[in-house]
């Protein structure tokens, strides 16, 4: 994914505008204790080291006071207890590829980076389960089991680098979630560390529970309820046949209509991605995948399953695209052609880095039947603020990813990019959609939550939050609007003198 260019400190929207910055530097005795607990090699405290952890993939920025690398669940528990004793907040982080600021230390404090808890602990091919530590890279799960014809279905564009712990925290999606669901549909059990350091297990290997579905609550809770230390994932069986089609349209309206028609006609492709014509040219310049340079939009559609099902679906999709005035429908002839098409899609955000100093990838959802209206609104909003807005998104499940290209050095442009993004997200909600389909709320959209939720909704979410994370010591300043949650960051930071470890 594309990270904004750090041409100058991106201080245009510093978090101090929204929340109080840390009032004291980190207590030296906390650093000493952390080093004694984990070893000096697993603790970062220098300013230049911490700078690396003040970004994720979003436009947000917040620096932790201390970065630590646990190796075991026990380490995590002890780190949390130690931080609690010093009353500093804790935030978990995987690879930092998130797009909503979920893994940024908004309240400063200790950042727990799970990069060194990266072992696959157990693989049960017969029952299609794997037990993994949170720092395992998403794609590595598939690599470990593909010899047996299995794979891990959620496939975010960052699958080569993002970690499963981050996927669980954000309930990550990806192109193929259209048919197979998002992360929560593929998690059977979790081991977690609660804010008081207690280690608990929820869910079960077989995926069934007695009582409440706690995995359903904790997956996607964005690190605000617990730190995930072990995940039991469900593995999917690779389909017998795959067909990948590229449908080329003269206009984005025709491509949108084709998506609506495909959905309405009862075909569920494994993936249905849209790239607009302008973005496609940028991608083609970078990837050379053979995308047309003169189209209005393309749909990258994949169907999977039994040979007999795939044949029928591909024919039906071709017919629908034809009815929606597709200029051409190409079929990938082999794995090489298929991989090339997907390379174009998955590296599209990176390609856009070549044409603008930075880009802001938005994430909103609309009912699929409203796709043409939504794209029209996005175009109008871009025009209003003077931006070119690219569109590379999961059209099949209505998950939009408008990309605003801007220059972060220009304060006005940055402010306009934020204003345009808010307007686009607002219009998604107005069309019956939601604020985020897969990136999470984090600190990117917490102030927009009132577009979707009432005071009563917040009150209940807040009670659930407080039931698990009563002092707001875990990942403060996320999800809830500052007026309704831990935006105010209730955890107090004691001065150096007042702490007696």
């Amino acid at each position, binding site marked *: 994914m594309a990270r904004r260019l750090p041409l100058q400190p991106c201080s245009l929207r510093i978090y101090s505008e929204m929340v109080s910055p840390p009032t004291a530097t980190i207590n030296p005795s906390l650093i000493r204790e952390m080093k004694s607990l984990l070893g000096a090699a697993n603790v970062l405290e220098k300013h230049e080291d911490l700078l690396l952890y003040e970004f994720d993939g979003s436009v947000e920025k917040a620096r932790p006071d201390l970065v630590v690398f646990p190796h075991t669940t026990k380490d995590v528990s002890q780190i949390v207890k130690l931080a609690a004793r010093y009353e500093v907040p804790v935030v978990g982080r995987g690879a930092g590829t998130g797009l909503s600021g979920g893994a940024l230390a908004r309240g400063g404090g200790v950042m727990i980076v799970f990069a060194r808890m990266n072992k696959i602990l157990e693989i049960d091919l017969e029952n299609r389960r794997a037990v993994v530590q949170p720092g395992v890279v998403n794609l590595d799960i598939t690599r470990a089991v593909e010899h047996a*014809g299995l794979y891990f279905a959620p496939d975010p564009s960052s699958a080569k680098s993002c970690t499963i712990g981050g996927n669980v925290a954000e309930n990550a999606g990806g192109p193929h979630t259209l048919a197979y669901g998002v992360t929560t*549909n593929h998690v059977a059990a979790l081991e977690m560390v609660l804010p008081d350091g207690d280690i*608990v297990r929820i869910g079960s290997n077989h995926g069934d529970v007695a*009582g409440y579905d*706690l995995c359903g609550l904790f997956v996607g809770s964005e690190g605000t309820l617990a730190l995930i230390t072990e995940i039991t994932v469900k593995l999917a069986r690779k389909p*017998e046949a795959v067909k990948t089609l590229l449908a080329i349209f003269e206009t984005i309206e025709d491509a949108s209509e084709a998506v609506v028609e495909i959905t309405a006609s009862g075909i569920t492709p494994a993936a249905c991605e849209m790239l607009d014509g302008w973005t496609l040219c940028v991608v083609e310049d970078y990837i050379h995948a053979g995308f047309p340079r003169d189209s209005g939009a393309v749909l990258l559609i994949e169907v999977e399953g039994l040979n007999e099902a795939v044949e029928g679906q591909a024919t039906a999709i071709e017919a629908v695209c034809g009815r929606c005035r597709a200029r051409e429908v190409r079929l990938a002839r082999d794995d090489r052609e298929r991989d090339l098409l997907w390379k174009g899609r998955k590296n599209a955000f990176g390609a856009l880095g070549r044409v603008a100093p930075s880009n802001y990838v938005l994430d909103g959802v609309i009912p699929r*039947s409203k796709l043409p209206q939504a794209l029209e609104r996005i175009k109008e909003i871009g025009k209003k603020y003077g931006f070119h807005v690219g569109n590379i998104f999961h059209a099949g499940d209505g998950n939009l990813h408008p990309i605003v290209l801007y220059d972060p050095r220009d304060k006005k442009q940055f402010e306009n990019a934020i204003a345009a993004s808010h307007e686009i997200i607002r219009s998604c909600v107005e069309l*019956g959609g939601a604020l985020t389909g897969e990136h999470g709320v984090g600190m990117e959209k917490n102030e927009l939550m009132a577009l979707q939720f*009432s005071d009563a909704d917040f009150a209940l979410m807040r009670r*659930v939050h407080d039931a698990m994370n009563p002092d707001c010591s875990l990942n403060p300043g996320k999800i809830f609007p500052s007026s309704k949650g831990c935006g105010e960051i209730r955890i107090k930071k004691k001065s150096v003198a007042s702490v007696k470890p």
Partner: protein
Amino acid sequence: MWGDPNQEEIGRECKAMNATANLASRLAEAIGAKRIVAAEEERAAYAIDGLTPGAIVLPASAEETAEVVRFAVAEKLTLLAVGSRSKCELGMAPSRYDIAVDMTGMREIVHFDAGDLTLSVDAGMPLRELEIYLKQKAQFLPLAVPCFESTTAGGAIASGIDSALRLQYGSARDFLIGAEFVDGTGQLCKSGGRVVKNVTGYDLHKLLIGSLGTLGVITRVNFRTFPLPATFGGHLAGFRNCQCALEYRMAVERAGLPLANLEVFSPSVGEMIRAILQKSEGDVPTELGRGEWCVYSSFEGNEAVVRRIAGDLERIARGRGAVHSRILESSEDEALGGMLRESFEWLRWASPANVVCRLALPVVRADVVAQLLQLAESVRLRAALLVRAASIVYFAVFAESEDQAALAPLAKIVAGIMPLALAEKGLSTLLHAPPEIKEKAAGVRTDGTDLALQQRVKQAFDPSGVFAPGRVAGGI
């Protein structure tokens, strides 16, 4: 001085009647008399495990539902939302049950976007009506739960009972995309939305699945719907023992065939299905009840897919030494599939006193099945066993009378199942049992550390304990 016992009893009854009349009139003041039912015979129909509510309320809107909850909170009463009441016995007996909130008056389809395959319905919407409605639009909801004819959408979610189609479509958590409900403070809340992909805020609606009415009164549920398949197929194979049947099931799983349902059942289940279908003059596959362990598969898709799967199943079954193997006629398939979907319903009423347990296990092995059957044999009672999808076992044991002597062997069965499930790293749930046995099992949980977290969830949703306390095992 001792009073006249008859007088005392009459006194108690009068007091109870006064309390009921009083509750009904106070409720009437709060939300209007026309939605309150206080007559004893009508209230009796809402009894759960011997507890009869003092009044029944039939709200017509979410706001009225919220009024009832606020009333109950203010009056320190407890309530339980019910739909068709077909599965109220799931879960433990509530420790108190003052008001039944009957949601069957709220049954509108609030939103249906055929082009988006999304649906929003009131909690009291019967699944059968919904099925008919969606069928006209060539769509369906894969919530194939027992008591299908009467079950409401809200009840199916709150009960959390298995759908027979979970192998292909997953459980309700995979297609429930949002919900509206009244929480324990009497506020109308929502979670999720009406779009198929959504990670905005906590997924609180997932907690409602299987919550047995203890977290809130569900007023509306939003689902992702699915295209109705063009063609259906069913296959039945019989094996000389459980081991062979389970090996065949595993071979089918390894073949990667997309099956909607895959159920292994004991000879006794086959006999029971045969008897019921014959009685109702339904189409009976003639192979049922011949003493074999049977495996039923259902599948769907275009004609070529259905033909292919049928052929593969035949080949695998023959290769695994099936005693019989056959593609079912569509009427037989419909009858057998329907009976298996309803298995919980007819298993629980199959003898004067019985227990029905559900086990979820990481792996269902033949030796585990043998241990379960041995439990029944050790007390000389008939048993029936059914394995659903990959890991769910329904195990029923039947006593031929409901007198006290018959209860001891059933209690022994229940006591034997829990350690067996634990040893297999699975869990067991008591779905049906005589009240005395159920009461003993109420406080027992077979899982580990998450009870405290579940209590925290309950406290957050229902701070004053207004919703059916004690329904979730472990005293929640």
